[in-house]
Each structure stands twice: as C-alpha cells, then as structure tokens.
C-alpha cells in the first residue's frame, strides 16, 4: 500500500482542492483524447456537421476503422457522463 498524496487526478477528473472549495476539470482528459485520435489540429465547432445536407452511402469511400470509431464513441460517452 502506498500513499499517492492529495487527490488531484482521478478517473479522468482533474481535482483541485482549495480551502474555499473544490474545482473539477476535464481539460487533461479532453486533450489526451484529441491526441489519441490525431485530432489536435482540428478546428472547434458547436455542431460538428453541416446542418442541411443529404446523406447516402459512399461507395468509393474508405470504410472507417470500427475499433477506433467505437473507442472514440465510448470515450465521448465517458466524457459527457463523468
């Protein structure tokens, strides 16, 4: 058993404990997510998709890596739930 000192990073939450209250932040988790999925250079958008476009099957397009995609969705779910 070892002491890891004051709680400051736990399950993706950055925790800052001050005398008058506690701050929580997920910046680090987000940054690591972007790095993991090579999206650090992407621009931010409120809605990450055009709002009026027609969607159908893209025959010529390369199929997505399913494992990677599912990992990404799972990470985003955790981000919103935690």
């Amino acid at each position, binding site marked *: *058993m070892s*002491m890891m*000192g*004051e*709680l400051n990073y736990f399950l993706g*939450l950055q925790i800052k*404990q001050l005398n008058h*209250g506690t701050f*929580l932040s997920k910046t680090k988790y987000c940054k690591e997510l972007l790095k993991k999925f090579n999206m650090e250079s992407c621009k931010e958008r409120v809605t990450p998709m055009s709002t009026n476009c027609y969607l159908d099957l893209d025959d010529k397009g390369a199929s997505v890596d399913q494992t990677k995609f599912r990992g990404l969705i799972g990470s985003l779910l955790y981000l919103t739930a935690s």
Partner: protein
Amino acid sequence: MNQFCEHMTFVSQTEPKIVAYAHNNWITAMHEELNQFARNEVWTLVPRTSKMNVIGTKWVFKNKLDEHGVIVRNKARLVAKGYNQEEGIDYGETYAPVARLEAVRLLLAYASMNRFKLHQMDVKSAFLNGYIDEEVYVSQPQGFEDHKHPNHVFKLKKALYGLKQAPRQWYERLSSFLLSHSYEEAKQIRHCLLRKHVLILF
C-alpha cells in the same frame, strides 16, 4: 539533462512481445513482479496430475509513461489465461461491485462541503491479495520454470490477474477488512465506507 540521460539508460524503450526478446530491464521487472507473488504467498508448487485443469500464464509488458509521455518505468505483469477456466470447477461467482460515477461526484461534493481533504492511496498488485475458494492450478511462468521440477504446476492460494474471480475476491478482501475495522457501509452508495471523519471510496 545529464540526470535525464542517466535515467533513460535504466528504462527500456520498447515492449517485448515474448519473454525470449526481453532485455535486462524487463528481466528486473519480471523479478519485481515475482517478488510480489512471494510477498503475498500467492501459490505453492505441486506435482501435476492428469485430473487438473491447468491454466496457462503469460507475461504482459507495459511501459509506464509520466504526464509528458516519457517512459519512466518498465512494468511486467504475470497474468492467467482466464478464458481457459471452467465454470463450476475453476470459478463460481464473478460479479464484483465497482464504484459508480455518481458516488465519486457525491464524495467530492461531500468532502468539499465538510472541508475534508481527500487523499489517494494505491495498493500494489491489488488482485494478488484476494483469497480464492476454488482449487485452481496454473502453469509456471515462462522463463522462470523451476529447474528441478519443470513439470510441476502452481496451486493458487490467492487470485491472479486474469482470473475470472480475481476482482470479486479483491473486493471481498478489502470490504471485509474495512467492515471489521468499524467502517460502515453507506446505505445508498456501495463503496462508500464511513468512520468518523474518514470516508473511503474504492
């Protein structure tokens, strides 16, 4: 910089796939892991019989990174191939409760309200602490076979990483210890144990 280079020479930069490719640093890491086994009295060497369902073991090598992504430690973990376990013989119940996210948030809020300072603790090779009720046999770790009895197998007293019952047995060990030391389980949230001004979440 000097210190940095000095440190780098003690850490292997690559993760071997099998034991045969493992470098000196990894061999040290494997010894460290086996020391944990000895300390926890995980197993005893017994002769192999034909009735035993012997579960294989495997070394898993992982480089540990610091917050800047620099490799700081080579970690070797000996795991059991739990997928070869047979239900009813090698394991019974496997359900293990884990902390809910709501409980984490609640704990943070409660601590903040009462001006508690939260501290974090870590248990080394936690699963090696859980006692197992079933008779489970595992093969000798690759590269560390007993040269006098190469055909013997290990009979487990404690759980191993990879075994189906390992998380449950660890939960059992920790919670029964805490409950016997006059911690009380919070009624609504599992994994929140209280004693005066100490609140434990795991």
